[in-house]
């Protein structure tokens, strides 16, 4: 909050009794600061406690802990089905996020740069998957695939994930393109570029970071998606579906949590690397 000097005219009494600002704001800020940290602690607490069970020697989720161990992490590596499911998720997330990014960027460019009658319809349909309940979308896709005799597989999950990644990509790209001056393309075209060339040489480099951000968002949405995947997986499970199957067994739960810790560490590492790369450029 900027506390600018009052712009009231210097008329003796008015400036003397300046409106009260400073002290109260400071107090409110301190309360808000405390509120933030309290809420942050509450958000971290359950997950931090869960993480404890990745190093707990006992398999039951109860306190006090019986001792510390790293065995569960070793067990992750010796559970091929678990690693395989993580690999499946990686494949689905990579494939679906790339397709969603390409389609979604197209929608955003079409919406911002072209005037056509159905542009609001196109935008509405592209963000509709955010509004349709996942259980409905999953059922509808199940009907489609059954009607056309398409077996459920990672591909059917991937199709569903392109759909739910699309709204995120469209919204992120829309936010980027709305602030991007159309005259830059027009300048390129005045200099002899065809429209696709102007898009490729001028617009694309400018929106590439936003596309990467959009793609990463779609990737994480897909990697963690369970509600649709449960309906649409075939014999090969994605990681969340595999995890759901294992949650019934208390003996394997610590292994699952260890895997989650590893995935979290990988995410963090990836983000740090991405940030380094971004700064180095």
């Amino acid at each position: 909050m900027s506390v600018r000097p009052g712009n009231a005219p210097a008329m003796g009494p008015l400036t003397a009794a300046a409106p009260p600002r400073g002290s109260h704001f400071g107090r409110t800020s301190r309360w808000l600061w405390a509120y933030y940290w309290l809420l942050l602690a509450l958000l971290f607490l359950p997950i931090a406690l869960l993480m404890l069970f990745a190093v707990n020697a006992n398999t039951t989720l109860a306190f006090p802990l019986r001792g510390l161990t790293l065995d569960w992490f070793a067990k992750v590596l010796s559970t091929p089905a678990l690693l395989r499911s993580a690999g499946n998720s990686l494949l689905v997330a990579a494939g679906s996020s790339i397709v969603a990014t390409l389609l979604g960027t197209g929608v955003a460019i079409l919406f911002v740069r072209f005037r056509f009658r159905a542009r609001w319809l196109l935008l509405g349909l592209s963000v509709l998957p955010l509004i349709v309940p996942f259980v409905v979308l999953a059922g509808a896709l199940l009907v489609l695939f059954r009607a056309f005799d398409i077996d459920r597989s990672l591909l059917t999950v991937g199709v569903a994930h392109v759909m739910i990644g699309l709204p995120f990509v469209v919204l992120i790209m829309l936010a980027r393109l709305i602030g991007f001056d159309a005259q830059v393309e027009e300048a390129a075209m005045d200099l002899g570029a065809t429209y696709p060339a102007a898009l490729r040489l001028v617009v694309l480099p400018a929106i590439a970071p936003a596309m990467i951000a959009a793609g990463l968002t779609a990737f994480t949405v897909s990697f963690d998606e369970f509600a649709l995947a449960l309906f649409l997986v075939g014999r090969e499970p994605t990681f969340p579906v595999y995890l759901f199957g294992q949650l019934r067994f208390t003996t394997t739960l610590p292994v699952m949590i260890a895997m989650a810790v590893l995935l979290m560490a990988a995410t963090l590492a990836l983000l740090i690397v991405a940030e380094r790369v971004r700064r180095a450029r």
Partner: protein
Amino acid sequence: MAASGAALDKPRSGRRRPPRDGVVGGRRGTFWAMLLPVVGFLAIFLVLPLVMMAALSTRLDLRGPLLEPWAPTLEHYISLAETPIYLRLLLTSAGIAALVAALTTILAYPLAYFLGLRAGRRAAVLLILLLVPFWTSYLLRVMAWKLMLGEEGVINSVLLTTGAIGEPLSALLYNRFAVSVTLVYVWIPFAALPIIAALQRVDPAVLDAAADLYASPAQQFRRVTLPLSLPGVIAAFFLVFIPTVGEYVTPLMVGGTSGTMYGNIIQDFFTKAANWPFGSMLSVIMLVATLAVAILALRAVDIRRFVEP
């Protein structure tokens, strides 16, 4: 999706078009090259499945190929009207979602106010910190609440040790309370995002004007900041409400039998019961209700202001 040529080729700034437009590689070709794939995708995998599902809801059972015509029947809709439990459960789910959305929005508002207006340059880092727990699998985050609320869980352990209760409370888990707590927990950081955006749109000059007119800081907040941030508040409410009505995963894990929501019934008809036509009918009802709420929400927030420059 017909595009009228004149409107298509008109640049937005209204400036003169370069003469090479319309030849190979012009705007028009690019337009169709971008439009067709996404329209095809949405038509085949979004519109067609929903239409087929609506059609299936008029079919008696699942026997025979799905693509062959059948005599449409409204039997499932009639049995819905005759068995009130389904619609009652839909209302209950909407009630849970409204409660969760309201609580989440109220809890997220001070957070958004702090991050959007008071945290200064640290705001970005503090926001990321808030989202860190969400790098963990959704299922494990819900699982974590089993750990908090269970009979041998954290809350019971603390209460037992401090002597506040004699024996563990079993009423904490496997009911609507557990579902609601878990959902609020999951949604708080996301509900803060639209509120932050709305707060940052408030022009500081308006607040200065209020201060110059001797509004106290509390009055400034109540009469200026809060009303101006309402679009963000409404957006946050519906951001939580809409996906929560159709939620089936969280109730499946921490809801038990008494915490069942409408989405679980749909899931049952598509999986265990394998009565897809009835499940389709229930889905159509929920879809229509959800779209109605979404349209109301868009009216309230007036989305066009955010998208049109």
